[in-house]
């Protein structure tokens, strides 16, 4: 089936979309960086968490940053509900007080239990591509399905932290955990 799709491509070219990176074949990390930004649109934070730290909306990377400059590129000039999006790199979980979204890099896999415990009381959306991240109390875990980046959601954990995940987001998640996992 050949379909002639007539689209105003010129309009697209002049305003580069941030949903995907500009390259024709984005890497796994570029896609994950985009998703981090996208999560900001589908998650609602509790009131006090969103007003903290001078109004900026922080997307933080804990550990060794796998994204390089792509995260900064994606976030530059964007805002959520009038709050500027900024990318921050932190080395300790305790520094995450100004973060709304925290990406736990693979380098932190061994300290994962401590990190998650440290964040227990804060309204931070925790995201990682560490295997079994959501099982161990992480909120969103990237998983690879073929060459596509998908994600699992631990809804129980997010709700406990006062976060509201939109139904649309849950719809596209490959798995949604609603009950506390045995053995955690």
């Amino acid at each position: 089936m050949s379909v002639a799709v007539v689209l105003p491509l010129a309009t697209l070219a002049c305003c580069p979309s941030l949903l995907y990176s500009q390259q024709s074949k984005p890497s796994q990390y570029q896609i994950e960086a985009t998703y981090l930004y996208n999560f900001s649109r589908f998650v609602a934070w509790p009131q006090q968490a969103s007003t903290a730290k001078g109004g900026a909306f922080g997307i933080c990377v804990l550990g060794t940053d796998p994204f390089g400059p792509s995260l900064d590129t994606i976030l530059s000039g964007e805002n959520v509900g009038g709050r500027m999006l900024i990318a921050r790199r932190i080395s300790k979980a305790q520094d995450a007080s100004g973060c709304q979204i925290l990406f736990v890099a693979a380098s932190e896999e061994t300290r994962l239990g401590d990190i998650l415990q440290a964040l227990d009381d804060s309204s931070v959306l925790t995201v990682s591509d560490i295997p079994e991240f959501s099982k161990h109390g992480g909120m969103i875990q990237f998983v690879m399905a073929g060459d596509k980046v998908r994600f699992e959601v631990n809804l129980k954990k997010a709700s406990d932290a006062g976060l509201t995940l939109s139904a649309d987001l849950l719809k596209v998640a490959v798995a949604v955990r609603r009950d506390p996992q045995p053995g955690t």
Partner: protein
Amino acid sequence: MVRRPSNSIASKLTRMNLLVSAIALVLACSGFVAYDFVSFRLNIVRDLSMQAQLAGSNSVAALVFDDADSADRTVAAFGVSRNVLASRIYDAKGQPFATYLRDRDEKIPAMPQIAAGKDEAYRFEGGHVILAHTILFEGKRSGYILVEQDMERIVERMENYGEIAAVMLGFSLLVVVFVSRFAGRAIANPVVELADAARRVSKDKDYSVRVNSTNEEGELALLVDTFNQMLEQIQQSHQELEKRVQERTAQLVAANKELESFSYSVSHDLRAPLRSIDGFSLALEEDLGDHLTAQAKNYIQRVRAATQRMGMLIDDLLNLSRVTRAEMRKERVDLSGMAKAVASELVRADGERNVEWVIPDGMEAYGDSRLLRIVLDNLLGNAWKYTSKHDHARIEFSQERHNGGYAFYVKDDGAGFDPAYTQRLFGAFQRLHGITEFSGTGIGLATVHRIIHRHGGEVWADGAVEKGATFYFTI
């Protein structure tokens, strides 16, 4: 009750009302349907746009998280609507992302061009509407959705309209028939009565007919009144005319009677003195025969000739007035036999002459035999008389075709007459020849003329000096 033929004014009015109503209804229905078609089509587009927007916004998460399966499930929801043929979601780059097809062999149509500054476009194609809508995420274009829907709903609607319109048309026309039956009578009845009255007037000559005038005002009432007035006038003038004709006829009859009795008595009373003159002239001649000089004898003979001529004149005058007064008794008359009888009488009177008679058998006419005998006496007698100066003569009585019937004629080769005087031939006392040349009183042809006219025929003549004459007559 007035008669009502199928082409009467009442049924014409009904038919006209039907036609006008039908045209008005059809036009009105067409207008409504056309308006509804356009507005319903727009409604369908608006409806489809809403569905597309809904499906689009439900696909935003799938688009931004590259989850084609989720988008497939979203567009598959179009399966609920039996009118949606196909739907497809494209990503921001215009690549197909998720597709729904009602039937497997359905084709995805080309996407309508979305104008700059707009986020939607649609077009109608082959009875389908194809609509494209931009999927926005946070004010950014994150994809497109295309939906194709058939127009079955509009076809159904139009069919329903057609049925309703047909029923309404039938019902309305039925109502129109009833209404115009009653309403039409107000116009039709006076006209029908007028026509009826006019027919009676023209057929029965009954001018006393009057049409009942209607209570309403207007052209019809005016027409009826005028018609009645005209009849009134005709009736009056008719009566007046009749009265005048009767008066004139009475006067004429009286005058004619007077004239006839006058001429009869004059002719009759003139005979007595004539007889005296002739008788005493004869006595003179016989008694004084030897004493009279030759000159005196000549005078007496001339007196006697003149009185005898005057006697003949009086006889002819009496004949003429008898011809005018005599009653006609019409019957089949054998003209051939009658002519032969006249001819043989003429020959008996003067057998010395050499005359060839040509009278074919079988000529007949319908008329009064006594009067027709006078006609033949005169015409054949004239022919006999005016050929007397010739050594040899030929006289023919025959008939020929004339104006679809027959004209009889008497033809001779005698003295003839000057055609310039043809008009004077049939007047009384008109003579074209001197008395010394041919004897006669000049009343014969006038008598013929009168008899033929009384039979409703015509008489005319043809001739030239010394070339003979032909007298024609029709009956």
